[in-house]
């Protein structure tokens, strides 16, 4: 029983990093109904800028964190301006393909900055382990869990208690009606994109400081894990992102424990496929969400 609980704990801890990544994804997907494949590479740009600074000058960790978040916000705005703003509302697939093109660009830019496969990254805690009775936890991941809960609470407040959030939800509901009632759609979307990238930047920083190294796989890893976690949890829903992230972590940990490390990712994809087919809205996707998506599917390339 104790190994089982320990595995679940490990899964929950890794899952909190997936949940953080999924939060940013959920925001973009919730607002734009678009798939931003460049989400991970934007995080990578920020992380690599932070690492470059860290290697060259060895600044305090909080400076690295600020640079990482600022860098990923800048990259996120760049992606939004190039891939999402110019292509109209009905161009979901085209913007997905262009965000893939920018993915290659951002990844190459990161590799030009730091060409080796992996680099050290400052740790927040020194990587120690805490024992709670028979169980072992890593404080790095507890920070991540706390950050995830705090950010999702803040995001919920922002979406449901402020004018900005109201505008955003109005755009999700009907962007034409929103713009007619005086909401600057383009500006609000840009802000939402920047916010999502900032969340991604925080997620990237926390994950890397827990791993104490940054590798060239970061961009793809962040995009895929964030996407899967969001899809498992529920489309564009904030509690869904958390549940999805944690669920993904637990699924991966247990399948690794049962069948070996090579089955880890395979199990995640299999669960995702089955879940998407059986319950397209995700675990927390309500029938209302699904009905709303059905009604919105008039346009040929709308991706909802």
């Amino acid at each position, binding site marked *: 029983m104790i190994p089982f609980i320990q595995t679940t704990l490990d899964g929950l801890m890794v899952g909190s990093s997936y949940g953080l990544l999924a939060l940013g994804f959920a925001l973009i997907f919730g607002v734009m109904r678009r*798939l931003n494949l460049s989400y991970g590479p934007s995080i990578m740009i920020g992380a690599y800028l932070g690492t470059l600074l860290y290697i060259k000058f060895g600044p305090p960790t909080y400076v690295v964190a600020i640079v990482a978040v600022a860098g990923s916000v800048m990259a996120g705005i760049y992606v939004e301006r190039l891939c999402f703003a110019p292509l109209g509302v009905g*161009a979901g697939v085209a913007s997905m393909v*262009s965000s893939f*093109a920018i993915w*290659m660009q951002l990844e190459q830019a990161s590799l030009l900055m730091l060409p080796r496969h992996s680099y050290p990254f400052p740790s927040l805690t020194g990587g120690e382990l805490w024992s709670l009775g028979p169980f072992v936890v890593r404080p790095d991941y507890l920070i991540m869990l706390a950050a995830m809960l705090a950010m999702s609470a803040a995001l919920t407040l922002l979406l449901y208690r402020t004018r900005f959030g109201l505008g955003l939800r109005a755009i999700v509901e009907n962007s034409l009606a929103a713009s007619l009632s005086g909401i600057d759609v383009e500006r609000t979307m840009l802000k939402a994109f920047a916010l999502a990238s900032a969340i991604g930047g925080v997620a990237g920083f926390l994950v890397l400081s827990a791993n104490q190294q940054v590798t060239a796989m970061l961009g793809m890893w962040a995009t895929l894990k964030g996407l899967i976690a969001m899809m498992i949890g529920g*489309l564009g829903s904030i509690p869904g992102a958390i549940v999805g992230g944690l669920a993904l972590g637990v699924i991966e940990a247990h399948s690794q424990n049962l069948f070996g490390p090579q089955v880890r990712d395979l199990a995640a*994809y299999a669960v995702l*496929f089955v879940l998407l*087919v059986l319950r397209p809205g995700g675990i927390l996707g309500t029938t209302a969400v699904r009905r709303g998506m059905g009604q919105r599917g008039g346009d040929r390339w709308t991706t909802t």
Partner: protein
Amino acid sequence: MDFYLGLAQIVGVHTLLGLSAYCVLLTGQVSLAQAGFFAIGAYVAAMLTVLAGWHIVPAIAAASFVAGATACAVSFPALRVKGLMLVVATLAFGEAVRLFFFNFDYQVAKGEVKIGPAGGEGFRQIRFFPENGWSTLDVLIFIWLFVALVMAGLWWMDRSRAGAVLRAVGEDEVAAQSAGINVTAVKVAAMTVGGFIAGLGGGIFAHYTAHIEHAQFGVALATFAIAYPILGGLSSVFGTLIAVVFVQGFLIEGLRFLGDWRNLLFGGLILLAMNVRPRGLIDAATIAAVKRMRTSNKEPGNARTQGAE
């Protein structure tokens, strides 16, 4: 010269991959599973020629059927979801296929060495072409024969009732359904044909590269597959061909001299092409212009040219 022959081989195989996505895209579905079907085709064909000693033609035929059957089987559950959900569901399937081959280890001892797919190390020793003395040119002709066949088939289909039905489903599902079209059957058929073509491309790919491994069939290849027809335009099969030449010939090989800086420009140029020509490099207007040119050349005295004179 060998460089250009090699490039033409790559263009041929990628055209098959792009055309497989083209079929599916015509019905308005976006599938990121094409790389998965491509991988199935590659592994099945290579195992048949290397392990079972088949000739390449029946081997790639069998590989195409396996890939097509897989596509058919997957499309039934997958097509329950639409749009972005389908993109992610097919992405999950494609990645699952890739990870399956990452773990797939089936080696047979043949003389001194063990041959066959070896998990993460990939599948080496696919030597059908060198063993049978095919020159690069022979291989090239072999590849383009299939490309021409598939393109001709799709071109003909586009002009037949089947093409009209596919496009009707792609334009407006509800309208197509009201017109008595069985939408699910059409989508499943399109996925099956797409999987078949992808399997064909994969089978050929395995033989001319001589070494396949799971990493070649990732998200990047899947995105390339749908990028070709979207970049080229869905109005004609030639759009996909032109997009492949543009991407593989110009962007990848032509800009190779830029070294590490190539990918920076690569992304930007794809973006530029999509912004300048949002309906694809070859769109309905281009086709109309070509047709006008042809008719005005053939009939110098027709109404339009008279008006211009």
